[in-house]
Structures are given as structure tokens and as C-alpha cells.
């Protein structure tokens, strides 16, 4: 029976995910939601933007993820003088064995499965756009040739919220290309103890690869097969619509402080992430809880505040909280309005 196969597949999926989480947890303390978010982006084929102050283990997380997934990893430290060629690669003149000289394309760091773009907001827009184009197209065009990037291709970009002076904030259109925006928070006391225990003692062992590329591809395909009931999809749509100031059910906060709401890409991200989340839980269909669970990560970078909102210091997460409160699970069901799960 197909359903049996599906159950088995989901079971395997859960096992793999649990294994992955456990392996990552050996190196990364806490930030379970960031880890799940990064895994979700990987399984959805999307990219993630990680924001957090320096020293929280963002690079460590990405590197650990790459180790556990048997995927190639590259790190790009963005600086203001970084050129697009530094990311994409360049053509050089090389001597062949026969001694003849020929042009050879030397691939840049973007040619990896997992690319860590550190402090992406420090590079110039030109350099940013080179990466963003690769993110969108999963290919690189150099000269007349186009190089396809190997799947899975995930870009995990980071932003330092402290040193904004002299940086080039990503334009909204570029931000929309990131599947998730994840906040890496400062560890709490217990977590900090554990970090210190892990990192100030014996050197950390390299993590074992628990998933390979085929498994990841399989998991990616499985995620897209998860069923979504119409009312759940409708719920996601109404949430996205409520982020617009003129949308139905838009809360007062959105009407006052939001300039633009989320694009349809945001709704796609919400729904896909909900499916993956349902699979994390071993379920076969996404639920409204799943939608609420992924809403902030999927939409916080897609809702643009107006000047008043920026001046008042309103956070997009506050707006999304208000949206969740104002939009009922089902139309006319006022009893089912819930905060974040």
C-alpha cells in the first residue's frame, strides 16, 4: 500500500532528522530553532539569513551542518573590497602540460553545497548581487559560459546587527530571496556553561556525516509531497494578506507601521516550511500550528516597515505577533485565535 510506504518514508525522515539534530547538538549548544530553521531551508532548497552578534556560533553551526551532511562547504568573508570574481571565480591563464597557454576558469567559493556568506552586508551591492544571482539561479555565468551549481546548494548568510555603519544593507528585493531569516540569540546561562565546557576543554571532534547527498535530495522530495488541507493553506494565505496594511484582518499595528507586506514568495516559504515541520513531527499533513510555527522565520524579512515604524523602533516580529492574533484559524472562528505556538 502506498500509505504504508509513506509511513515508512516519514519514519525514515524523522529518524534522519533526529540523527542530524543530535549530531549537530554535539557541537552546537541550544538554538534548536535556528538549527531546525537551517535544516528546513536545506530541505526546502532555500537559503537562510542568520542574524546575530559575533561569537554566537553562526559560522560554527554552518560548518557543523556541512560536516554532518557530507556536503562541500565554503566560507566567504564579505568585506567592502570584495569583488564579484572573488565569489564566483575568475578566468586565469594557465599553462597546460604541453606548455600551451590557455584560459582556465578557477571556480570561486560559491561552488560549494553549503556557502557561508559571512557579514554579507559589508560587501558592496555589486558583489552582493553576484551572490544573490547565484542563489536565485543556482548557476553562475562567467563570460560566455554558465556553470551550474551542484545541488543541494544552500547559502547561509550572516549579518552583524551591531556594526551597521559603513555597511550596505541588503535591498528588500534581495532579502526576499532568503527562505528564512533566523535570529541567533545569546545563549542562556546553562547553555553558556555547556559552550564553555565544550570549547575550552579538549578540541572538538569533527562531526560525523549522517546524511549524504542522495538522502538529502530524497528528503527534499518527500517534503514536497506532504499534504496540506485547504483550510490550512487558506490560513497561510490570510496570514500573508494580513501583513499588508490594506489587507483584510490586518491588525492596527500593520496598518500603522507597515509599508509593504509579504510577497507571494513569502506564502510559498510558509507553506513549504509548514510541510517540513509536519514531517519533523512525523505527521502526514501540515497544520495551522505548523503555519504559525514557521511564520516569523519566513516573513520577518519580507515585511517592510514605514518610516514611522522605524522611528518608533517597531520590530517586524511584533507586527507578525499581532497578525497571528488577529487572524482566526478559520473564517468566522473567533475562538481559535492563538498566539505563536
Amino acid at each position, binding site marked *: 500500500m502506498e500509505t504504508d510506504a509513506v509511513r515508512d518514508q516519514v519514519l525514515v525522515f524523522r529518524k534522519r532528522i533526529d540523527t542530524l539534530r543530535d549530531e549537530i547538538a554535539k557541537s552546537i549548544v541550544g538554538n534548536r530553532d535556528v538549527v531546525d530553521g537551517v535544516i528546513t531551508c536545506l530541505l526546502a532548497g532555500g537559503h537562510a539569513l542568520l542574524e546575530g552578534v559575533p561569537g554566537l556560533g553562526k559560522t560554527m553551526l554552518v560548518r557543523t551542518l556541512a560536516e554532518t551532511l557530507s556536503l562541500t562547504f565554503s566560507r566567504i568573508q564579505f568585506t567592502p573590497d570584495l569583488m564579484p570574481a572573488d565569489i564566483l571565480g575568475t578566468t586565469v591563464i594557465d599553462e597546460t602540460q604541453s606548455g600551451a597557454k590557455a584560459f582556465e576558469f578557477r571556480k570561486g567559493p560559491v561552488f560549494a553545497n553549503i556557502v557561508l556568506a559571512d557579514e554579507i552586508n559589508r560587501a558592496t551591492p555589486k558583489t552582493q548581487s553576484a551572490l544573490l544571482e547565484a542563489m536565485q539561479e543556482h548557476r553562475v555565468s562567467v563570460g560566455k559560459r554558465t556553470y551550474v551549481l551542484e545541488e543541494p546548494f544552500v547559502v547561509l548568510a550572516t549579518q552583524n546587527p551591531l556594526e551597521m555603519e559603513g555597511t550596505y544593507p541588503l535591498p528588500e528585493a534581495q532579502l526576499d530571496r532568503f527562505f528564512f531569516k533566523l535570529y541567533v540569540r545569546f545563549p542562556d546561562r546553562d547553555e553558556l556553561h555547556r559552550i564553555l565546557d565544550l570549547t575550552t576543554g579538549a578540541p572538538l571532534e569533527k562531526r560525523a556525516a549522517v546524511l549524504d547527498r542522495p538522502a538529502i535530495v530524497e528528503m527534499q522530495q518527500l517534503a514536497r509531497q506532504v499534504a496540506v*488541507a485547504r483550510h490550512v493553506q487558506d490560513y497561510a494565505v490570510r496570514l500573508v494578506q494580513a501583513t499588508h496594511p490594506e489587507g483584510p484582518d490586518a491588525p492596527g499595528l500593520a496598518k500603522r507601521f507597515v509599508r509593504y507586506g509579504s510577497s507571494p514568495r513569502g506564502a510559498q516559504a510558509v507553506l513549504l516550511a509548514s510541510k517540513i515541520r509536519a514531517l519533523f513531527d512525523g505527521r502526514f499533513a501540515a497544520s495551522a500550528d505548523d503555519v504559525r510555527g514557521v511564520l516569523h522565520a519566513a516573513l520577518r524579512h519580507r515585511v517592510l516597515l514605514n518610516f514611522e515604524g522605524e522611528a518608533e523602533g517597531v520590530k517586524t516580529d511584533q507586527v507578525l505577533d499581532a497578525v497571528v492574533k488577529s487572524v482566526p484559524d478559520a473564517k468566522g472562528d473567533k475562538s481559535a485565535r492563538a498566539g505563536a505556538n
Partner: protein
Amino acid sequence: MSRDHEGLARVARLAGRTERRMRGARALGLASRALCVALGAAIVAVVMRKLGFASDRPVRVVLEVSTGAVGLAAATGWLWRLPERAGARALDRTHSLHDRLTSALEFGSIPVAERTPFMQAAIDDAIAAAPLARPQAAAPIRIPPGLVPAVGLAALLVAASLVPTRAHAPVAVVPTIDPLEMSADDIDDARSFLQQLGQRAVSDDTRTAIEQFNKLVEDIASKRLDRTETFRRIESLDEELAAGATADRKALKGRLEAMGEAMTKAELTRPAGLALSEDHLAQARDALQDLAKKLRGPSPPVDKAKLDETREALKRAAEQADKARSALDQRRQQLSDEILKMKQKNGDAGSDEEQSLLRKKERELERLDRESEAERSAANQLDRLDRELEQAAEDLMKDLGLSAGDLEQGAEDINHLDQQQMSQEEKEQLRQKLQEMRQLLREQGQGGKGQMVRLQRFGRMARGQGPGQGQRSGQQGEGQGQPGSGSPSASGQGQGASPGQGPGGANGQPAQGGQGSQAGETWIVGPNGERMLMLSRGASGEGHGSESGGAQGEGAGRSGEGHDPHLLGKATHPGMGSQDTQVQGADNAQGGSRSEVILGAAERGFASHRYQKVYAEYHQVAEESLAKDEIPGGYRFYVKRYFQLIRPRDTP
């Protein structure tokens, strides 16, 4: 698949039960709130009833409406639409099933062939989880929040119900009208007029009309009529009076005159003829009755010449009607022919002169038509008399007794005619009075309340009750020295001199004079012209308050109280006999001049004997002028009204 079907059905049942519970909880919640409101309203209604501010009916209505409202709230709570799959969602939410049941029901509605494996797996997952779902937990029916307050209110209601009920005194809503106001003076005038007319009335229908008029006046005086109703009744009465109008007076008079002329040609009928031609119907009646007696008498006049003469006279008198009518008809026909000829000749295209002549002839014809109509009406009236006279003429040659009988019948007819005329005259007077009243009310309506106040004040002053006049009604001018009212005992003694004893003084005409009036002392002019001191105390209280005629002396207030220290004699013995004496005052024209009388009336009112005489003289002149049409039509009312206002009043 059947397993799926059963599983889904079970899930659906669970969802259905949950939804029913949700409806029930909602209905209970709404009903409990409505119950609180209803009990509150019921308490207010019952308290109002107990305190007597409301009757049973409104309380019952409030209770019924409140009960209905509770039922309606419960029904609304049950029937109001629930969101789609609210029951399944409530189960998912309560048991943290992550929309398993809801999604399963949705996937279950998709045909099996179209379901993906994941959908089917989701359905199976939900069916497996269904036994865990409890509708009672998902849709608990808790105690409604309004129940506790409702219980408290119910207790209050019971307590209020046990309070004894005060009698409810409904405030009667009396329909009120805006009554028409007429001054007391005008009402008195109307009453006086009707009283006088009633004494003279000879016919029943006149008396009936007077009664109706009286009732109208009394209703106005009692303020039972508003303006519309008053005018309606005046109109109705006027129509009734006009309906009985008999023949045109002028035409009738003309006929009688002609008849009388004819009857004067014979010696025996001459007295009757003269009376008829002078419109003395009573005399004519008597004359005919005398003639009839003569004819029946022991020695009737059998002179053939006289009888022939009489017969001819009676016959000619009877023929007057035909003569008059035929002359009129001939003239009418002649004029009608002339008009027809002129129209046929000229049509509408004649010259101005011809058109003017035509119009003149047409007007003449209209006048003749009216005359003819009046003549016919008079002829109807006199038809019987004509026949009686004619029969009398015929019987004169056969049997004097028969003729006498006819003449007596004729006399009766004349008597009836006389009474009709008198009745008609009285009706005309009534109608005229009605017209005056109507005009008066119209004027007063335009004048408003201010005019009414002025009229009321004028009426009081006219009766001598004006401000500063005290109760000195009937006194006119100081020093006028009118002879006293003729009480012999009053002259020179000044005690027991109750003014107004004796005829003429019965209207409360005190001994006039009133000079040097100190409290209790009045100087009067005695019958011989000498001055006499009359002592008074309070209201006509000379010594012992012997008052008749209602004259009030100075300082009228409390009569018969106290004791006058200025006693001039012994107390009257109650057992003493008395002798009635009638005296009459002699008018020796020693009163004030006409202008003084008028001036005094203006200052002190119109209730004096001297004023009555002066008024009568002026009023007669006014009546004559009105009768002669010397006063323009638009001012006649004002002249009558003026004299009505200044008419003499009785002393109060």
C-alpha cells in the same frame, strides 16, 4: 476503503457531537445573559405594580416579552451558524492533534482516486487518533456566566412578588377641549334676551328654538364647547330657524292688503278689510269673528243689498290671488318673449347698446321670477283663507249660519297666519341674535385673550363692580341727591333704612346721596328734598342689618356682625306685628342731567334707574336708524354691539 469510510464517519460523528455541544454552550450563555436582563426588567415591572404606578397589563406585557427574549436568545445561540468544521477543530485544538481530524475530514471529502498517499496517510492517522478525542473536553458545557446573577435576580423577583400590592390608581386621561370663552356680560345679555323672547313666544317651534338657543348659551357659559362645536351648533340652529321660513313677508303683506282693499268695499266686511290692509291680523280676526256672530245672531242683517255687497266683497277678496298671479305671469311671459326675440335677432353679435338692453331685460326677468316665486309662496299660505272666503260668499246666499261658519274658519286661518307671522318674527329675532353672536365670537377670536380680559373687566365695571368702587352698586355720583327709595321709616331717622325697599327700589337702588361718607354715615336727600343722615354699618348694616334688595353700604364685608354703639332706639320686638305698605317713588326730575347720568354711568357702571331711562332714549334712536337702513351694513354690527355693551345692568 470501508474502514476508511467508517473511520471518517466516526470522526465526523465526534465532530458533530462537539458542534452540538458548542451550540448548546453558546445557547446557554446567551440565554443566561438574556435571563439576567429579563429578570431585571421583570423586577422593575413588578415593583412598579406593587407600588401602584402601573396596572396589570403593562406588567404582563413586560413579563411575556422578557420570557420571549430568553427563548429567542437560546434559539439564536443554538441556530447561529458555526464556522466550518468547528467541532473537528475544537477537538484538534483540545487534544493537540495538529489539525489531524479536520484535515482528515477535508481529505475524506475528496474522491478516493484523487487522494495522494499522504492524504490517505493523514486520514489513517486521524482515524487512529480519533478514539483519543472527547467532545466533552473540546466543548465543555460550563455554568453560564450569567447564571449566578440570574439566580440572585430571581430571588429578588420572588421577594418583590411577595410585597403587597398597592391599589393602582390609573390617571384618567380626560379628553380636554379648548373651550370657547364668552364674557359673562355677553352671556347675561343672551340669557336676558332669550328670557324676554320666551315670555312672548306663541308657537311651539319658537319655544323649541329658544330652548335650543338657551342650551347653547348655557353650554358656552359652562365651557363645554370648543370653538368649532360652537360655530357648528350656531350654524345648525340657524338652518333650523331658516327652514321654517314661510312666505316672503312682503308678498304676503301685499296679498293681505289687496284682500283687505277688496273687503272694505262692503260695509259688513269693512272693519276686517281695514285691519287686513293695515296688517293688523288680530283685529282682522276679531272683525271676522264679530261678523260671523252677527250672521248667527238672533237678528242677522238680512238686507239683500248688504248681503250682495258683502258677497261681492268676499268674492273679490278671494280672487285677488289669481289676479295678482296672472298679472305677474303675463308680464313674465311678455318679457321672456322679448328676450327670445332679441337673442334670435342679434345672437352674440349685437351692438353694445342692444347687449346692455338685453342684460337689463334678463335681470328684470330674474326679478319677476323671484317675485313670482314669492307670490306663489304667499298664495300657498293664503290658499285656505281664499277658499274659506269664497265659500263664505257662496253660502251667504244660501244659509247665513253656514257662511258664519266659513267666516269663523277664515278668522281661524287669519289667527293662524298671525301666529305664524309672530312666530316668524320671533324666529327672525332669534336668527338675528344668532348672527350677532356669531359675529361677536369671530371678533373675539381675532382679539385673543387680551380682548377677553378687557371685556370681563368692562362687564364688572358696567355692573358697578369696578376697582375702587367697593360694593356700592347702584350708586351714581355723589351729591346727585336722588330721592330716596321711599321707605318712610328711613326718612329722617337713618335706621332700619334698608335701601331698596319698595317697588322700583327692589333692584337694590339705595337712597342716593352718599356725601360726606364717613364710615357708617351716609347723607341722603329725603323725599322732601332735605338732607338726612343715614347710618350704615358694614354691608347695609344700619344698626341691625335689615337689608333687602341687596344694597350694600360702605365697607361691605361682614353683615350682621358686631354691635353699633350708636343705637338710637330700642331693639325691635320680634313678636311685634307688621304692616305691609307699598310705596312708589315719584320722579320729579330732580336728578342729574342727562350728561351727568352718562358720565356717572361711565365711571360707576350702568346699573341705575336714571341710566335706564337715558339709555332707552338713545337706544330707540339707534333702533330707528338701523331700521331705516341709515347706517351702512358693515357698521350695523358695531352699533348694535355698542348699545349692547352699554345696556343697563341689574345690580348684582
